[in-house]
């Protein structure tokens, strides 16, 4: 039985765009040289790397020399935080939020064990981190503040320009994990006072294994990966030419498509969301409905559990994700939803659908066709479902 695959888990990862694959293939085949080589065969590839650097810089309003290619968003995050501490050895305090990606949270937990103090600031029930809350957490010994641009689980977008301004007013370094925002939200770092920004290729139709760190000119820096002179001595490791080319091409594509994509994908997302809310009783939309990525909707279905929903969706060819404990491999549900004050039972039942430019009306139709039946079946099995919901 062949079933169409409906991929609505684009905040987890995206497909490689056909144009991106075409752009990188020559560097996997014949042009396999090392840009750091003296001979032309390898050496001329440094121009290819520079071109990609320019493409990526243009997407976020940066200078090309402010881009450091890394292996992934996690490396970018870890590099930014480690650098801030290395360059300011007397500062022993860090500020971040309770809803960050594990890339940040795990590092912060590690730093606490090493004796650093970390303030995890609260977010509002709608998921927004307020500039005033961040400002209030800053101390004289704060080395860096890190607040994500957009949240991966809810899509909620933080007021980064205001937060960055508040942090800079106190003279503290500011980093943002913009892995979910880059390529979807307009970002202009020539006007937004961010010192460091993390991004990841595979969230914007480049392959996995490539990311970048934006490092504003003049920001003190110590490398995290030590090696050769690549990236102006800021990140060792042989240039991953095919992946770098891919990220450049993906960035250019994202910039060119952004306005059109926003319009079209917003319509798809909104139609899915409205359809679910209309067809299924006792559903809650999670997070701020306006200030969020146009591709993301997070909803919670009362009286049932998220992993079971995902398994049945998957059986119908639909890929989504959940903040439930069972699907995470731990016994506790999403730290993001709990930080928003959502009751445990709604955390367990949360489902995220995240779109890309490749989704279609047929995808929305398919989800709207299968989901009400799945929810109804699981509610029939659940001991908590009020009888009137099953009539």
């Amino acid at each position: 039985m062949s079933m169409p695959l409906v991929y609505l888990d684009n905040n987890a990862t995206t497909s490689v765009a056909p144009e991106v694959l075409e752009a990188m293939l020559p560097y996997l085949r014949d042009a396999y040289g090392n840009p750091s080589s003296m001979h032309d065969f390898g050496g001329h590839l440094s121009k290819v790397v520079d071109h990609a650097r320019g493409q990526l810089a243009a997407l976020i309003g940066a200078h090309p020399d402010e881009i450091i290619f890394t292996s992934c968003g996690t490396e970018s995050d870890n590099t930014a935080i480690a650098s801030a501490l290395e360059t300011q050895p007397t500062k022993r305090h860090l500020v971040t939020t309770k809803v960050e990606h594990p890339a940040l949270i795990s590092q912060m937990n590690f730093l606490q064990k090493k004796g650093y103090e970390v303030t995890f600031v609260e977010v509002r029930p709608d998921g927004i981190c307020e500039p005033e809350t961040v400002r209030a957490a800053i101390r004289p010994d704060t080395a860096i503040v890190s607040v994500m641009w957009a949240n991966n689980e809810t899509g909620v977008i933080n007021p980064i320009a205001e937060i960055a301004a508040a942090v800079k007013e106190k003279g503290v370094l500011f980093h943002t994990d913009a892995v979910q925002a880059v390529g979807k939200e307009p970002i202009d770092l020539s006007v937004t006072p961010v010192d460091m920004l993390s991004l990841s290729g595979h969230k914007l139709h480049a392959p996995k294994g490539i990311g970048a760190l934006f490092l504003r000119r003049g920001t003190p820096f110590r490398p995290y990966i030590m090696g050769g002179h690549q990236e102006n001595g800021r990140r060792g490791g042989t240039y991953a030419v095919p992946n770098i080319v891919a990220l450049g091409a993906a960035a250019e594509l994202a910039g060119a498509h952004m306005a059109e994509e926003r319009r079209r994908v917003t319509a798809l997302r909104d139609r899915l969301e409205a359809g679910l809310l209309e067809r299924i009783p006792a559903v809650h939309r999670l997070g701020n409905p306006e200030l969020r990525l146009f591709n993301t909707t997070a909803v919670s279905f009362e009286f049932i559990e998220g992993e079971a929903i995902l398994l049945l969706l998957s059986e119908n060819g639909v890929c989504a994700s959940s903040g439930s404990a069972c699907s995470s491999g731990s016994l506790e549900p999403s730290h993001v939803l709990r930080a928003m004050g959502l009751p445990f039972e709604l955390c367990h039942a949360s489902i995220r659908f995240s779109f890309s430019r490749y989704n279609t009306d047929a995808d929305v139709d398919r989800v709207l066709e299968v989901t009400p039946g799945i929810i109804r079946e699981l509610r029939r099995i659940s001991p908590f479902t009020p009888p009137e919901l099953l009539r």
Partner: protein
Amino acid sequence: MAWDYSEKVKQHYLHPQNVGVVDNANAVGEIGSMVCGDALKLTLKIQEGTDVIEDAKFQTYGCGSAIASSSALTELIKGRTLDEALKITNQDLAVYLDGLPEEKMHCSVMGREALQAAAANYRGEAFVHEEESEYHTVCQCFSVNNLTIEHAIRENNLTSVEQVTHYTKAGGACRNCVPEIEAILQRLVPAAAVPSATDEAPPPMSMFRRIKIIEETLETDIRPALHTDSGGLELLDVSETEITVRFLGRCGSCAQSGSTLDFVQARLEKALGRPTIVREVK
């Protein structure tokens, strides 16, 4: 993450058997809650006199393996006498399903518990009342009692706290109950990880060595455990008889800081190999 479910598990969550509530049920067992993330309500029709389970239905709130375990349970117990059914272990359930991922074994334990609760209900007994004097909640986060933990250890030959968490969920959140789980393991499995104390007086120890061991234990053992709960601990003073600490972060304001203190004391006593008093300064 994707779980490696067997085809049998998949069949049971895609097409669960015996969903619903038995009409005129004379035995009802309810386990778990929505907050915990899984719950099971089992209803049975048991023939008076013969004690044969004529009908069994379930309602489950939970993940795929919770639904599958419940469905499998009802299939396994129908037609058996209550006493026969009660002999079914969580291992039997897992075997019937061609295995469950270890992290999901608590789903099979939940099935067995619901049956015990239903049996108690049928016999007009309070669930686990025969051992009531020894019954208490160990894990507050997931409401897991000591008897559940002991059964799981015995039936599945568990030897570590991590395994106990996989099978019962106990210790899976705030970890305050980890020392108690260790104590239960030590009692039931004498050869388990925790070495038993000897009656011999401990050899003398210099103050330098005492402080060094305390600091190492705090760094490598205690602080990592507390940090999973966004807390921390500061060492204030060490004397021949006492260790003074202050809790930081969430541990400082936690209502359960008393049991956290017990945890710290247990770990330090173990590391030092002698009794010691840990005092908390607010």
